[in-house]
């Protein structure tokens, strides 16, 4: 594989073909915050926390470093003003959904977020998808999946599969950044699939 170098925060960093900016940065010991990234799973690009600013010729853009491929001569800024501003707001938005999650608070402290910027409406799940992707890609069991769309999007265990597979596995519990997955499992794992739907309103909650 061909090797080349890119410049991250003014530092020359070596990378191989097929690497993403995030992988190249981590290889050089440069920290980029992530929530939905997990080594071994295909990058998802959902949390957008790993966004960095890249300069290509005259134009500068914001891209998700976990997905964007490293290129020869690419100039990357991981903590530019635009990037930090966005990271702060993303954390503030997430904290409204998962106010007591440690990793969010830690990042929040680092970037100086306003914890009360948005009224809390806790769902505790930040929809990073790590559990879903782990079960699908690594374990290939598909016991848990996404349902719904937009703010109605949720993660759900499917009892038909979960009742058989999960008791002997439970590995996704450790991956969940919020730590809420185990309780999600307990509540939703019912023997009969009672779809949590109001028969006359058709909404999922």
């Amino acid at each position: 594989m061909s090797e080349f170098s890119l410049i991250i925060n003014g530092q020359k960093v070596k990378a191989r073909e097929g690497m993403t900016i995030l992988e190249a940065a981590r290889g050089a010991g440069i920290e980029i915050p992530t929530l939905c990234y997990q080594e071994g799973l295909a990058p998802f690009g959902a949390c957008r926390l790993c966004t960095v600013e890249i300069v290509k010729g005259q134009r500068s853009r914001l891209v998700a470093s976990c997905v964007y491929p490293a290129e020869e001569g690419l100039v990357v800024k991981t903590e530019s003003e635009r990037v930090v501003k966005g990271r702060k707001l993303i954390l503030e938005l997430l904290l409204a959904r998962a106010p007591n999650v440690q990793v969010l608070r830690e990042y929040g402290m680092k970037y100086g977020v306003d914890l009360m910027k948005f009224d809390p409406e806790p769902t505790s799940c930040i929809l990073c998808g790590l559990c879903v992707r782990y079960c699908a890609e690594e374990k290939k069991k598909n016991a848990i999946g996404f349902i719904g769309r937009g703010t109605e999007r949720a993660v759900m265990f499917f009892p038909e599969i979960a009742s058989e597979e999960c008791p002997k596995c439970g590995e996704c519990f450790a991956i969940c950044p919020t730590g809420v997955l185990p309780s999600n499992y307990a509540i939703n794992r019912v023997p009969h699939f009672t779809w949590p739907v109001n028969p006359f309103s058709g909404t999922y909650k």
Partner: protein
Amino acid sequence: MTRLNSSASVEKKRQEILNSKDQKKLYVTICSGTACHASRSDEVFQAFVDEIERKGLREKVDIGRTGCHGFCERGTIVNVFPKDICYLQVKAEDVPEIVSKTLIENEIVERLLYEDSNGQKIIHENDIPFYKRQNRTVFGNNRLIDPQNIDSYIALGGYTALTKVLFEMTPEQVLEEVKKANLRGRGGGGFPAGIKWETTRNAPGEPKYVIVNADEGDPGAYMDRSLLEGNPHSVLEGLTIGAYAIGSHQGFIYVRQEYPIAVENLLVALEQAREYGLLGKNILGSGFDFDVKVHRGAGAFVSGESSALMTAIEGKAGEPRPKYIRTAVSGIWEKPSNLNNVETWATVPLIINKGAEWFSNIGTKGSKGTKIFSLVGKVNNTGLVEVPMGTTLRQVVYDIGGGIPKGKKFKAVQTGGPSGGVIPEEFLDLSIDFDELSNVGSMMGSGGMVVMDEDTCMVDTARYFLDFLAGESCGKCVPCREGIYQMLKILNRICQGEGREGDIELLEEISEVVKDFSLCALGRTAPNPVLSTIKYFRNEYEAHIYEKRCPAGVCKALISYYIDPEKCQGCTACLRNCPTGAITGGKGLVHIIDQEKCVKCGTCLEVCPPRFSAVTKLSGVSVPEPVPQGTKVIRKGDRKK
């Protein structure tokens, strides 16, 4: 149907069709586009069938359907050939008169003709000012084609472009022609189609796919629907030409499931094209194979985004993918896939037939050719309008659209759907051009053009679009999912009179992050309606927040209905129609609205006789103390004394 299998057979078929038609025979067409369908064109059609049968004219008169003509405000549109008489707003009850007067006695039914501003009656459809001021190169044939009959398309010269391409041009030559024409995508992105085609052609990997994006999700836009319903073969021909140029043998048409007639007409068109050998194996005997599959959408706006669409064709939930790997290189099943909008494909046969030079002579430097717009909203002549790029907004809204109804004042025109912005009066002389529209904070989009007047609230408009986008967001990435949600919350508060200091700034702050950090174009363009309404109508936001006033009188929480005691004549119309019984009064007594019971439905304002005009909408001021119950009205006559 016999297969056409040589370079000469299309032309031969065309001559055959023209010769078999008795040009002098009476032929009646009834527009069956969606809007006319909603105006009960089916009943009109049936009425013609019945009446012609009744009068024993079956041998003398042919009846047919056409797709949308575009003048949707005046449906149902009926044309009588060979004289080319155009009747508007035809109802089933009018049919007997048309049959007896026009078909039998060869006279014109004057009252069904178009009347211009000078009182002049116009007979031929193309002379009507609405049409005359347009340049209907792509859309114009709709009025002459029966979408379920391929012969009507061939009779007008259909499939001659495909013949030329397959037998006289190499794929590279076709590519060059389209590149030279500088055809930019008509779906909203405005990306040069020729370059996309070239990228797909050069990308490694087989098979290659070509796709028609007929998802048309922008609310208020229905150009693609009318093209597909009315002239499906134009799209198929363009698609086949593109497939030849790119080296693809499999095409997909992704149609939203809310368009059942378009799907039906497409399937019929595909079948007929296959029977004629214009689709499938060895097209026209040229050795080129190409076939098409129709794929229905299932109700997701976001699936109209090109990478999401391709994911949907793969059978998965249509979520967008990061665009760093272009779909032209890695699309459906990671194979090179070229996606273009319906209108883009329909323009291709014209470019081949008339030449790239002809095409690039129309329009502006950066935007060539014509564009179809759906001109809707507060405008007199609602419908589909095709104009050359470079036409000004004023020409479209006033000259073609006929201006604002009821003498109201123009406020803004919204283009580009939920991804676009509002354009106020000061820019009415802007030329319609991809870059010009983006420069003022809006965009061309797919062609939706919504006209708004003084009674449209700009804050409510922003809220409406965000509400739409919040429901359509796929929810994968945080900025779009949570950012739009929070912005919507703020706008809801503002419209309910609970706006706070700092709300506008917060909206701008969230907008910037959503714009820069979202995964796909839905999220990245979602803040546009908010940002452009704040830019041009900040005063409306400030009125809502600081004065609790809605200048347009729309936001229910900020308006009150009030009956002016000096104008009320005690006719009891409002009292009788009020759904909550909030009005007290009696004959000859001043009517009073109980503000506690009023639900702001506006019925009282609707039913108050215009000569009294006693009901008013107040906003930002407190409702005056009501006069005592039982006060007598001031008769108009009395006031003179």
